[in-house]
């Protein structure tokens, strides 16, 4: 059973718990058993809070049996990337710099899902401070990809991706500053949603770059992401960027007829990223699926992809340098090599470079808003190909080739990655859907419709392959 792929999605578990056919206690024990059996090879977790999870599951079960079910996350086991603060549980950002750090309070988003009744399984691996990875010289080991452990996980929410893919959590928290939810979602064959900037509080989340940081859910389906987003979203005065915009009932808005939906196709982005032929074929096939669902395709042309990436990278590096300046100057050896070298490079950026990037950002945001005048949702690739081999990833890989995810950190738009097929090697391929500000509902509905019209979500990695790699 443990080595099998017989584990539910969040929505399936939730419906079964509501119907009384699945016990939160039994489900939590089942997932804890999977973690014990498989995580030694996948490194999804830095800390497993098994006793607390069991206690939370027992409380959830008692409340639900007493007729006090809080909602669809009640009794569902999920886990948190280790940059989200968790009261009484180590939160290290997988860095020696924060080894032993135990926060007194939960991050706002963590507190919100706890209030919704979710069972917390523990803390998930990440690239160091959500930036430096994949690294073997930091606190703990990097997560591995269950589809093929020789291939990269994407980052930085790598442990979240590994856990959800292998059934070591039904859903998880990610963060995204340049693609850190969507890239691992692409390489793991998951659904990852970076909501609108300000939609989910950043309070209690260790910053990478203040003006680009987003928190969001990663799960197996769009429906699962909708359920998680409902619990995570909401205005928080503790986060200066938090938006006071009501969050609608996303899960109830999923079953939307796509007839007449106008999809803007940003084809030149994946052409400029030199997308591999199998990825291009998967994207074109996906567009045909959307047309078959009644959507209307509109070609969209924006500034070159490299302009968006330059803007994002300069802002990201400058803000990250400011966060880490004291350690960089005083004790740089505390970081792993990739984190240290990327932040050292940030030290060569001038104040004028940063301000020019901010001016370019305003222009690009205006351009993107104008492009939305005639479309409801945008479509492009999430990555240029399937997960590369892990040894191909050097310290500066994010600057050597443009990342297809970065434009939507620049704009702060809601952006979702979902699986769009598989390569000939059996690795997931991914497409991205991008919405207007605060219109996560349309993005989720389009992804949900595509998921229902295709068979990709039925395919899970063979965990025997993980065993074989051990």
């Amino acid at each position, binding site marked *: 059973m443990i080595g099998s792929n017989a584990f539910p999605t969040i929505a399936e578990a939730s419906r079964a718990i509501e119907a009384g056919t699945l016990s939160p206690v039994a489900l939590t024990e089942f997932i804890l058993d999977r973690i014990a059996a498989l995580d030694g090879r996948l490194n999804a977790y830095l800390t497993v809070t098994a006793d607390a999870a069991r206690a939370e599951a027992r409380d959830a079960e008692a409340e639900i049996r007493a007729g006090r079910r809080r909602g669809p996350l009640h009794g569902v086991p999920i886990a948190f990337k280790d940059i989200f603060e968790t009261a009484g549980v180590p939160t290290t950002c997988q860095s020696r710099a924060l080894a032993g750090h135990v926060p007194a309070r939960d991050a706002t988003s963590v507190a919100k899902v706890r209030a919704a009744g979710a069972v917390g399984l523990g803390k998930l691996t990440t690239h160091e401070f959500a930036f430096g990875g994949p690294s073997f010289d930091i606190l703990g080991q990097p997560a591995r990809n269950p589809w093929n452990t020789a291939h990269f996980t994407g980052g930085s929410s790598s442990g979240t991706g590994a856990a959800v893919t292998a059934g070591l959590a039904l859903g998880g928290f990610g963060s995204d500053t340049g693609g850190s939810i969507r890239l691992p979602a692409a390489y793991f064959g998951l659904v990852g949603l970076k909501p609108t900037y300000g939609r989910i509080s950043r309070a209690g989340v260790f910053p990478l770059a203040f*003006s680009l940081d987003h928190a969001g859910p990663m799960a197996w389906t769009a429906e699962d992401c909708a359920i998680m987003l409902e619990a995570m979203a909401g205005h928080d005065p503790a986060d*200066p960027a938090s938006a006071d915009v009501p969050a609608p009932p996303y899960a109830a808005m999923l079953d939307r007829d796509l007839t007449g939906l106008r999809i803007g196709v940003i084809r030149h982005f994946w052409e400029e990223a030199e997308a591999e032929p199998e990825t291009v074929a998967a994207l074109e096939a996906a567009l045909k699926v959307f047309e078959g669902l009644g959507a209307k395709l509109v070609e969209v042309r924006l500034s070159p992809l*490299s*302009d968006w*990436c*330059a*803007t994002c*990278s*300069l802002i990201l590096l400058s803000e990250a*340098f400011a966060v880490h*300046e004291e350690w*960089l*100057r005083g004790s*740089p050896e505390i970081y792993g090599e990739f984190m240290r*070298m990327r932040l*050292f*490079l940030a*030290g*060569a*950026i*001038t104040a004028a*470079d940063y*301000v*020019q*990037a*901010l*001016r*370019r*950002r*305003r*222009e690009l*945001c205006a351009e993107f808003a104008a492009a939305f005048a005639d479309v409801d949702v945008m479509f492009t690739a999430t990555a240029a190909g399937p997960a590369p081999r892990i040894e191909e990833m050097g*310290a*500066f890989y994010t*600057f*050597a080739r443009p990342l297809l995810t970065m434009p939507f950190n620049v704009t702060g738009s809601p952006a979702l990655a979902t699986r769009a097929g598989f390569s000939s090697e059996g690795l997931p391929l991914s497409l991205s859907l991008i919405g207007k500000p605060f219109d996560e509902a349309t993005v989720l509905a389009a992804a949900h419709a595509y998921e229902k019209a295709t068979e990709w979500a039925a395919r899970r990695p063979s965990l025997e392959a993980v065993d074989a790699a051990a």
Partner: protein
Amino acid sequence: MTEPTISRQDFDVLLARAGLTLDEKQAEDLRHAYKYVQAMAERVRTPRGREAEPAHIFVFPHEATAG
């Protein structure tokens, strides 16, 4: 490896200004990677009027405003 786009002397000035202390290998590796910063810095300098505002502007904290 391509030739660095900045002299060692000029790059050392940037590192010193940032308050960073690097060993010889780190400094040389970074000097070779500096081309990425230069390329990005060029890309964000598109023609624009002097009055063009950055994306982030100053706003008063909510609690600081009257009423």
